[in-house]
């Protein structure tokens, strides 16, 4: 791990008078998978949207690959690859055409051989002519991830990438994330799966009511919170897990 590929400092997001994110600060280093966890409405999506440049923060600073997202939004976006929660490409286009479209958008010169290599790498060698809507959920996620990575960005944002995937596809995606980490990409991952966070994240932050409650490694968080009364109460099988820590720190009530 070396220098940060994402630095979020004092991020504040308001919707009218409601403050959804209150002075959030964290960073993601190159070669690191950083997890952002939180219950529904905690401020994860707002934080991610601000990093993606879809939301203008009320205060704070976001720097992606050395580029301020407010001063140089396009340059900042060129330095990140994004996999959105809902895969969203024109259903009329084929897989090949979608990859070509995004290669063009990111200024990547893609030969037919390169394209075939990409399709082979995501196990869609013979499916390039299929329309995106004809692919299974797992295949769509693989296309979405390969597009997020097509320009080899320093930072990759993955918004609940394994939602709705079967265990095999999920494992495959984890391996893919680890491969990217190994190649020096920094990954910001949001997930509701504590198993996933524990399995792949090097560090994580738990966010609740718009504020970061705690930051650390998965093992470190379990260790430092195992004696808290709320965490022990949340534990179901005696052994303290990351999920117990999460519920202990964010409360038992169901969020909308």
């Amino acid at each position: 791990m070396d220098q940060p590929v994402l630095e979020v400092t004092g991020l504040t997001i308001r919707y009218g008078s409601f403050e959804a994110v209150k002075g959030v600060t964290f960073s993601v280093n190159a070669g690191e998978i950083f997890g952002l966890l939180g219950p529904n409405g905690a401020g994860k999506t707002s934080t991610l949207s601000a990093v993606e440049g879809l939301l203008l923060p009320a205060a704070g600073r976001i720097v992606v690959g050395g580029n301020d997202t407010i001063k140089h939004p396009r340059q900042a976006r060129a330095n990140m690859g994004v996999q959105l929660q809902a895969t969203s490409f024109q259903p009329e286009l084929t897989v090949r055409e979608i990859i070509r479209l995004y290669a063009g958008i990111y200024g990547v010169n893609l030969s037919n051989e390169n394209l075939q290599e990409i399709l082979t790498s995501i196990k869609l060698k013979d499916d390039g002519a299929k329309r995106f809507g004809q692919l299974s959920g797992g295949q769509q996620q693989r296309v979405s991830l390969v597009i997020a990575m097509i320009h080899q960005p320093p930072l990759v944002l993955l918004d609940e990438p394994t939602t709705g995937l079967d265990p095999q596809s999920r494992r495959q995606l984890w391996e893919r994330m680890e491969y990217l980490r190994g190649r020096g990409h920094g990954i910001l991952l949001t997930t509701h799966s504590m198993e996933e966070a524990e399995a792949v994240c090097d560090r994580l932050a738990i966010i609740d009511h718009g504020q970061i409650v705690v930051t650390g490694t998965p093992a470190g968080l379990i260790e430092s919170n195992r004696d808290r009364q709320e965490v022990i109460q949340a534990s179901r099988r005696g052994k303290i897990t990351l999920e117990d820590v999460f519920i202990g720190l964010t409360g038992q009530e169901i969020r909308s």
Partner: protein
Amino acid sequence: MNSVTLPSNQVVLRSLLRADFTTQWRNRKSFILILIVPVIILISWKGLVDKFGGAFILGNCITVGLTAIGLMGYSNSIARDREKGIFQRLRVSPVAPGSIMVSRLCVQMAMILLMTTAVFFGGYYFDGITLSATSYFLGYLSAFVGGWLYLGLGQMVVGLIRNAETVHSTSRLIYFVFIMVGMFGELGVLGKQIGDLVKWSPYGSVNRILASSFKPGGWDQTSFLALGVTVGYALIFSALGIRWFRWNASK
């Protein structure tokens, strides 16, 4: 890991255009419908050519086509892509929002060109309407000005309404009202008062500039006034449509 440099606008626009034209081509059903409706009207109005003149008939048919392009084609495609999150996906990439819209508008301009050509061809083939080269040229120009008005109207609809289904039903309703009141009002079937109103409505003003373009010698004060009214409508609709437009469908 090295910093990524921005691609040139030209490369980005070329990629967007290729994708948008492919999408339009694959949506052949709506594409053909937009082309065929004005031609069917052209054929069914064959008997009216002597009474109203070829310029009036061609003007009406092109106006119907422009209404379909702006209200049925453009607004529905924008509403659908917004709801599906296609715009969100593009906006998290380094594409300038202007490039996304320019590419979409280029597709619609190509549709205007095709539809106008289809009407000219149909007018010649079915109704025996022939025009001078200047008239054809001015006809294309006027079709683009009229197209601007209807694309602006379509933009206003997607600016005002977020839900794709509601956009679809609203644009269909406006299309139907425009065509019925516009066409029959122009023909005088709905009485003098409605006829006078229609004359300066978006339908009537576009129809007038088109009809005047087909007889360049016949450009008079009313034609210039109709051009001014058309541009005025187009400016207002586009400005409001752009101001109200949101890239995501959620409130």
